[in-house]
């Protein structure tokens, strides 16, 4: 009866890690995707200004049976992201200090057989930006041919109080994101 969607898209992992940052009280979340073709690496950074964590917690967060939540006893987000990176010949690390945010970095071998595709990144960004318009998001995609940046602080400034969840703004963001990401090419 229940449909199961495999988390086989990197964009779904990114959404999940950003949700962690939101749960940590982040007010600004930066997502940076860097593609370096000569060496064939894909690096994903998710940087937040949430409450951060101490060294001991950093060692435990990729354990599936560690969670700060009280509503369920397993936490899979970071464990699954780490597994996705390591399965694709890459690496995973967390840099954080209590009260000073966190930076999650996952590196992938671009052409690795087991590297999941990026998938619907526009969907992830739209879900974050519209669903949590109280928080600011900066998305940066850097490829050898150029760079795309979307900073919701800039968008909000232009909108002068009109919410990001306004129907016309959703449509604007969707069209602009889809066009820009298509132009940068598939990952």
């Amino acid at each position, binding site marked *: 009866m229940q449909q199961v969607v495999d988390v086989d898209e990197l964009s779904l992992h990114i959404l*999940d890690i950003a949700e962690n940052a939101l749960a940590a009280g982040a007010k600004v979340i930066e997502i940076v995707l860097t593609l370096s073709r000569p060496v064939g690496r894909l690096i994903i950074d998710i940087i937040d200004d949430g409450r951060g964590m101490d060294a001991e917690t950093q060692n435990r967060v990729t354990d599936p049976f560690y969670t700060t939540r009280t509503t369920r006893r397993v936490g899979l987000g970071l464990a699954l992201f780490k597994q996705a990176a390591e399965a694709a010949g890459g690496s995973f690390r967390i840099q954080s200090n209590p009260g000073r945010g966190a930076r999650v970095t996952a590196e992938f071998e671009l052409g690795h057989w087991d590297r999941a595709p990026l998938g619907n990144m526009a969907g992830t960004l739209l879900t974050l930006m519209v669903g949590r318009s109280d928080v600011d998001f900066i998305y940066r995609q850097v490829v050898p041919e150029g760079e795309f940046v979307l900073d919701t602080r800039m968008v909000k400034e232009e909108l002068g109080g009109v919410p990001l969840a306004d129907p*016309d703004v959703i449509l604007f963001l969707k069209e602009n994101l889809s066009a820009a990401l298509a132009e940068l090419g598939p990952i």
Partner: protein
Amino acid sequence: MTKLKLDDLKKIRDRVHNETMLREGGATAKVTVHMGTCGIASGARQVMEALMEELTLAGRRDVTVTTSGCIGLCSEEPLVTVEILGQEAIRYHFMDKNKMRQVFRRHVLEGEIQTDFALGKGTEHKE
């Protein structure tokens, strides 16, 4: 490289400001998609995308859409909560994009609770 068309945002701003001057009051309905690891793994992003598309099709400025985290009902995901001003909140479970479209059109726009997909009334849950 594609740049954001900032002029379009200014046009939206002016249009919305003109419209809201004619209409008093804030949101009359709020739709929340739960977006924990459990929700995401069972399709919550697709549900959110369908919801945003329905909202843009309806063009309703008095309906807000938002996301929230895991509420401890992981086996019931994707979960969606519909709150209509002056009414009890309705929580829907095992949602997908088609059910979301139906709930938006029938419940949010027309006030008809879709009991087939509903889990229950109210937003109370274990925190």
